[in-house]
């Protein structure tokens, strides 16, 4: 559960969301990612560290460079986070619909 909460906090930060967006289309090195932001390089490194720690990003060694890319599996898991909440309302509304359809025919 703790890891999951961290994931949610990780994507709550606008810079980290921008990093994820940037990496959505391609794998990049830390330097190339940092070049897209006004923030200091160590700050970007810190963000990369957090995203990697909660498994949203994966590192890949390519020669002397380390490339970061998005973990599709983890991103899907985050998207699914909202599913139980949606299911709860969907169940309630399905019940409402059935109930009122019967109400209608009883009249």
């Amino acid at each position, binding site marked *: *559960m703790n890891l999951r909460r961290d994931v*949610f906090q990780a*994507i*709550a930060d*606008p810079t980290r*969301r921008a990093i994820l967006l940037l990496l959505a289309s391609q794998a990049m090195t830390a330097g190339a990612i940092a070049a897209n932001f006004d923030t200091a390089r160590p700050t970007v490194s810190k963000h990369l560290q957090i995203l990697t720690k909660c498994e949203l990003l994966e590192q890949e060694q390519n020669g002397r460079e380390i490339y970061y890319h998005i973990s599709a599996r983890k991103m899907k898991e985050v998207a699914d*986070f*909202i*599913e*139980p*909440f*949606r*299911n*709860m*309302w*969907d169940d*309630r*509304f399905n*019940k*409402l*619909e059935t*109930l*009122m*359809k019967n*109400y*209608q025919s009883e009249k």
Partner: protein
Amino acid sequence: MGQKTKISAEDGRQELVITREFDLPLELLFKAHAEPDIVAQWMGTNVLKLDSKKHGSWQYETTDAAGNVVFRANGVIHEFVPNHKITRTFEMESTPGSTIQFAVQLEFLEFEKLTDHTSKLRMQIVYKSVALRDQMLRLPFAQGLNMAHNRLQDVVSKLN
């Protein structure tokens, strides 16, 4: 048939929007939100009070099979325009021993006629903070295991 309820919760915002289209005439959809005994049935809770009018208030309470209160919430109604809209507050009361502190949330319910037999509900919920919204979104996820366990207990107790 896919699920019909849609949730829109943008990152970093302290609100969410729930939308749903119903195979029901507008009047019946609205009635299901206004009459205490009907609300009780589809919400699966006891409606202790629901005074459906401007300045009215409401209180829900859910108990488990043993009679313990597992959920209690209350609020007031600010706007009540039949077949059009309900504006109300919603506050979940903390259960003893719970570490989660809830804050009042503001709910805007808008009812819309689509055809003579279909209608739409748009429910906008505004929370005190982004963190609280995210917490509420995650709640059913965290409760999933508990609920599965309770349902199993229900089934077992009915076998006896």
